[in-house]
């Protein structure tokens, strides 16, 4: 076999954008249309009848009754419209011995390069144009189009439009002055530049006229509103440099309605411009066809016009349709009969065939994708094309010239020396090698666009090329590039086969090829059955696998234990296929399940980001919650529960990136993790149960992953080495101790037991202290602020839950009694007590930036502890001041007796005030004064203790002491003393004042009193001045 020739033939037969040029190749590969819906009118809603292509030909095209026919062939791109029309033509030529056909002039306009130039060239080549002048003009156009470069032709087009505007005489859309301004606007260099850009309107017209652009959907050659609205970018330039008219117009056309109006106006000239540029005058096409028909009539012939794609006549289409729709009767009986078969899209038909034209349509043939896509059709098409590639051109030609009968089609398909699938065509078997039906269907279903065109281009051609390259020793078969087999990953239907396959010792590239063969050609599994010559793996014949170099592959036999690992000893029955779903009745759950498996495959094999990661992470969480005995591992249930939060589980390259941090559970993208996630997905799909076929295998994978990662997970949860659960407990207890101290919850002397109960009692974060402005109060407010309050409350919860033993899953929130691990608590307590609750040495050296569960208490302690120490200093200072003041009032000794005496003095004084002098005062003064005697002991002790604390004591002793707010006690005592003193002072002053007043009143009324005062004072002085025993002279 000359494989180079085969390669060449492949490219000849299957061209990228058009059908095979050669008619014989066309016929050799033609797939008969067996079911064509045909409507017998131009109305969209008329009833359709199913006809075969032969019936269409014989009943509609062959036209033995010589009826006027305008047959529209419509359908989406790539559906086969052009193919059908071409077949009609070929069919006509195969009937060339029939008189009717012999007397038929067939004009076949192909969509060679989808340009008007190409169309006109064909018209010229096929002798449609008879008028010499017209002939010359069209020749000139074709030639000039060939010669003219793109810029010249575009310029021609542009100025044609400009001229139309300038010479337009109608005031329908714009008045004369407006048209002048429009012309001026269009002449502006910047405007022109934009209109002539590659994706601008002039380029669109150019493409229609002369630029080959393949079979891709042709963009309509027309002006659009966006062409003008997009001129915003040159607005400033025109405003600066443009003419007055240009400035005016551009400001208008930036608005949508004005832009739309201008586009519509210019499009009015489209056909005229196209014709002009095509060197065609108005009416040329009509005249051309009419003249042809006249000539043919005279010759006794009829005309069949076959147009593959009507859009190639853009600019001339209206005329053409009009002239083709004219029947050869009545006043037009001098015209020959015309049968036109015109291919166009549904959109074109709806847009351009207005009602009157639709009425002239005699038939509609709908070619759509519904008639293509089943295994039979694919198989037959493939078989034909495969065979055609092996035929020489000559063979094909000869066969075609002989009538192109299917039964006589040469069979040249290369066949292997083992049995292979074939298709029955015209009662003969045509081998599908190197394809099989399964591969054709699978590959077709993986196409982004499921049309014959793409099937031929992207499946048949690509894989045949690969096959030839393989034969030439230059490549591998099949081609496994994404462009060749699609984006969906290839998966075996049974997971253990995936695992088994991964362990196959082959180079990666070959493995990829083998996977494609097994999943696309085969059934997607590794079941090995039968013996030679019926030896199959994955329902593929082993010889086939060997043929492509897959030697030594062993599958999974149902009863054999050889070459199967212990983990893979399972009772295999076909599981649900993981191939792209073909069933249209899949449940939502199943769809999700498949999607998840696909996502995992993409993640693992294609290194894509993992979709549905949240679901996967949830399952991991549930699994780990139960699979690890956290408490036994030394991790408190509460800690485990909190740390098993979803955000702490990260799968490598999951869809949304989390903040870069040390995730507690980091699932790497490796095989073990991949299988773990699959196992959990399976478990979830089967109702959170392990009751499914592959369960043991899945469980094995799951446990394998767990065992590989468990130690690391546990270590991370524990926070080792820096943070251990014991650390966390100590910090929590210490923090609660501080809180108790600040809120007055501590006592100077209390047993360890009582203190422990207090710490674990979850008391409220309120203080009995008075609201003052001192440092303690400020710190109290700080910890009672909402944000910190919640932190303390959280700490309380943590504290009780950390040493709590929880039954059942750690993540189940059970509102049960708390069972504390006393030994843990006591161990922590002992440590703290030895440190006198100053945990500075237990805190991490570095500042904790973010408080996670295990370190949140430490973080708060880092900020709080220094402040507490400051506050204690402040309290000591206050106490010092108070003691000093009290001493000034009561004397050096502040013992109990002093307080008692002071209390009594004050009480007596108050009593005397009231009873002797009838002076009233605050009712509570007496009570307060009496109370001093009641609490004299306490006051004395407080004073004594204050001295000791001021001298310096341990942290906890100071905190416990000041927790009870002793300074307030002393302050209260001092306050009552000062109040009483103040009262005494004021009352004495009042008495003095009263006395002075009395004396004043008395003295002002008597001179003698003054004399007596003066005299006696003088006498006293003189007597004092006299010598005496105790008098110093």
């Amino acid at each position, binding site marked *: 076999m000359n494989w180079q020739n085969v390669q060449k033939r492949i490219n000849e037969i299957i061209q990228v954008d058009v059908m095979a040029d050669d008619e014989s190749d066309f016929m050799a590969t033609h797939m008969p249309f067996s079911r064509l819906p045909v409507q017998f009118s131009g109305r969209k809603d008329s009833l359709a009848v199913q006809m075969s292509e032969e019936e269409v030909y014989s009943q509609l095209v062959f036209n033995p009754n010589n009826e006027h026919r305008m047959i529209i062939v419509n359908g989406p791109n790539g559906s086969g419209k052009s193919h059908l029309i071409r077949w009609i033509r070929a069919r006509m030529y195969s009937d060339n011995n029939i008189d009717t056909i012999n007397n038929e002039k067939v004009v076949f306009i192909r969509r060679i390069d989808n340009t008007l130039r190409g169309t006109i060239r064909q018209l010229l080549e096929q002798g449609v144009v008879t008028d010499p002048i017209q002939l010359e003009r069209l020749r000139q156009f074709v030639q000039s189009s060939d010669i003219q470069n793109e810029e010249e032709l575009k310029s021609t087009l542009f100025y044609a439009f400009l001229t139309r505007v300038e010479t337009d005489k109608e005031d329908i859309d714009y008045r004369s002055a407006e048209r002048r301004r429009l012309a001026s606007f269009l002449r502006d260099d910047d405007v022109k530049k934009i209109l002539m850009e590659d994706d601008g309107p002039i380029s669109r017209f150019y493409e229609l006229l002369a630029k080959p652009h393949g079979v891709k959907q042709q963009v309509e050659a027309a002006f659009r509103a966006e062409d003008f609205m997009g001129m915003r970018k040159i607005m400033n330039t025109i405003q600066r440099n443009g003419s007055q008219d240009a400035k005016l117009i551009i400001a208008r056309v930036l608005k949508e309605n004005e832009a739309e109006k201008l586009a519509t106006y210019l499009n009015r000239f489209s056909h005229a411009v196209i014709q002009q540029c095509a060197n065609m005058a108005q009416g040329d096409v009509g005249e051309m066809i009419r003249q042809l028909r006249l000539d043919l009539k005279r010759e006794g012939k009829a005309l069949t016009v076959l147009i593959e794609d009507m859009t190639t006549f853009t600019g001339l289409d209206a005329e053409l349709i009009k002239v083709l729709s004219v029947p050869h009767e009545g006043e037009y009986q001098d015209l020959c009969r015309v049968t036109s078969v015109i291919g166009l899209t549904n959109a074109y038909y709806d847009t351009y065939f207005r009602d009157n034209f639709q009425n002239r349509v005699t038939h509609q043939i709908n070619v759509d994708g519904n008639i293509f896509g089943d295994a039979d059709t694919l198989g037959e098409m493939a078989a034909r094309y495969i065979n055609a590639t092996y035929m020489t051109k000559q063979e094909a030609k000869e066969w075609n010239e002989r009538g192109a009968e299917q039964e006589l089609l040469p069979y040249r398909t290369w066949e292997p020396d083992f049995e292979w699938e074939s298709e029955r065509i015209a009662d003969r078997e045509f081998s599908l090698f190197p394809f099989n039906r399964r591969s054709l269907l699978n590959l077709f279903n993986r196409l982004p666009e499921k049309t014959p065109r793409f099937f031929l281009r992207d499946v048949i051609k690509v894989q045949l090329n690969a096959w030839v390259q393989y034969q030439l020793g230059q490549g591998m078969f099949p081609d496994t590039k994404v462009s060749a087999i699609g984006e969906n990953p290839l998966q075996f239907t049974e997971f253990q086969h995936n695992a088994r396959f991964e362990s196959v010792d082959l180079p990666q590239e070959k493995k990829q090829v083998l996977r494609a063969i097994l999943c696309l050609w085969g059934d997607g599994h590794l079941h090995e059955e039968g013996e030679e010559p019926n030896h199959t793996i994955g329902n593929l014949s082993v010889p086939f696998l060997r043929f492509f170099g897959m030697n030594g592959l062993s599958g999974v036999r149902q009863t054999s234990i050889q070459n199967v690992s212990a983990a893979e000893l399972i009772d295999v029955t076909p599981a649900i296929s993981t191939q792209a779903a073909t069933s249209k009745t899949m449940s939502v759950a199943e769809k999700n399940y498949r999607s998840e498996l696909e996502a995992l495959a993409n993640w693992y094999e294609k290194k894509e980001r993992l979709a549905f990661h949240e679901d996967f992470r949830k399952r991991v969480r549930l699994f780990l919650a139960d699979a690890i005995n956290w408490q036994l591992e030394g991790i408190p249930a509460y800690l485990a529960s909190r740390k098993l939060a979803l955000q702490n589980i990260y799968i490598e390259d999951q869809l949304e990136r989390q903040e870069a941090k040390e995730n507690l559970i980091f699932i790497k993208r490796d095989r073990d993790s991949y299988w773990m996630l699959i196992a959990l997905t399976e478990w979830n799909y089967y109702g959170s149960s392990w009751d499914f076929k592959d369960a043991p295998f899945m469980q094995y994978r799951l446990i394998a992953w767990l065992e590989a990662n468990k130690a690391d997970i546990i270590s991370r949860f524990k926070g080792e080495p820096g943070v251990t659960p014991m650390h966390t407990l100590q910090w929590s207890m210490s923090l609660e101790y501080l809180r108790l101290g600040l809120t007055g919850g501590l006592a100077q002397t209390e047993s360890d037991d009582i203190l422990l109960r207090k710490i674990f009692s979850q008391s409220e974060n309120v203080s009995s202290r008075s609201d003052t402005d001192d440092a303690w109060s400020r710190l109290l407010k700080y910890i009672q602020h909402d944000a910190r309050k919640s932190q303390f409350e959280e700490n309380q919860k943590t504290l009780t839950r950390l040493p709590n033993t929880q039954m059942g899953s750690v993540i189940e929130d059970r509102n049960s009694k708390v069972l504390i691990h006393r030994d843990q608590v006591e161990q922590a307590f002992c440590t703290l007590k030895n440190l006198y609750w100053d945990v500075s040495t237990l805190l991490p050296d570095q500042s904790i930036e973010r408080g996670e569960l295990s370190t949140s208490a430490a973080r708060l302690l880092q900020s709080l502890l220094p402040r507490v120490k400051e506050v204690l200093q402040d309290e000591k200072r206050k106490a010092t001041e108070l003691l000093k003041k009290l001493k000034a009032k009561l004397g050096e000794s502040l013992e109990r007796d002093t307080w008692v005496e002071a209390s009594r003095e004050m009480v007596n*004084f108050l009593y005397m005030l009231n009873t002797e002098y009838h002076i009233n005062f605050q009712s509570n003064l007496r009570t307060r004064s009496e109370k001093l005697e009641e609490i004299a002991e306490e006051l004395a002790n407080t004073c004594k203790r204050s001295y000791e604390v001021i001298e310096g004591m341990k942290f906890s002793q100071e905190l416990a002491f000041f927790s009870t707010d002793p300074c307030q006690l002393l302050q209260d005592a001092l306050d009552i003393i000062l109040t009483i003193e103040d009262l005494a002072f004021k009352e004495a002053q009042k008495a003095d004042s009263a006395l002075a007043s009395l004396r004043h009143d*008395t003295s002002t009324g*008597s001179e003698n009193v003054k004399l*007596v005062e003066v005299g*006696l004072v*003088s006498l006293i002085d003189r007597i004092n001045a006299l010598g005496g025993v105790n008098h110093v002279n």
Partner: protein
Amino acid sequence: MLINVLQDATDRLEKNKTSQERVRDLAQFESNIKKILDIANKMDSILEVAIEAKRQIQMPIVLELTLRNDLISTMRSVLEQAQDGFLDNEVVRNLSRNADDLRGYFNSSWTQTVSEEAKQVATSLDTFGRFMSNPDEASQIKLAISSRIQALPSQKNDVSLFASNLKKGREMADQAGDDPEIKMFIKKVLDKQASLADITPNVQEWIRKHKLEQRTKISFA
């Protein structure tokens, strides 16, 4: 200290209360005020005289502690009460008594101060008056001196006069003999310093001349 403050307040309150609660008889008050005034004036005079006496004759005026304190205390009480518009009779009596005590004290001090010398001078004047150039004057002075010995004079002038008379009397007594030896002997007699050795034949002759043998006494010191 608290206690001090309370005590002080109590005192002041009490003082006020006491003052406020006193029954005030204006007429009585005015009467007692006048009495006090009189007593004060008297005491003032006494002091004036005493001071003059101290100046003239070096009468000591150091008051005895009890007397002084009593006096001052009474006067202060008087002051306090007077300021209150109240003067009880007792305090008036006390002051009066104090004033009397003061006079008594000063009288005693006067007597003690002047008695000896005054008697000496008087005796000398009496004895030697006839020998003086102006025996009438001597006799007047002797009378003047003798009448002031028992009590402090009531007037300052009287103190001055007394001092002057006493001085004059002494001078006259001194000048009673024209013989220096006789003057010396008279002076010594006035000073109670004359001894047997001083009785010189000249002195002896003077004694016989003036028939003073019987008036001359001898004693052993």
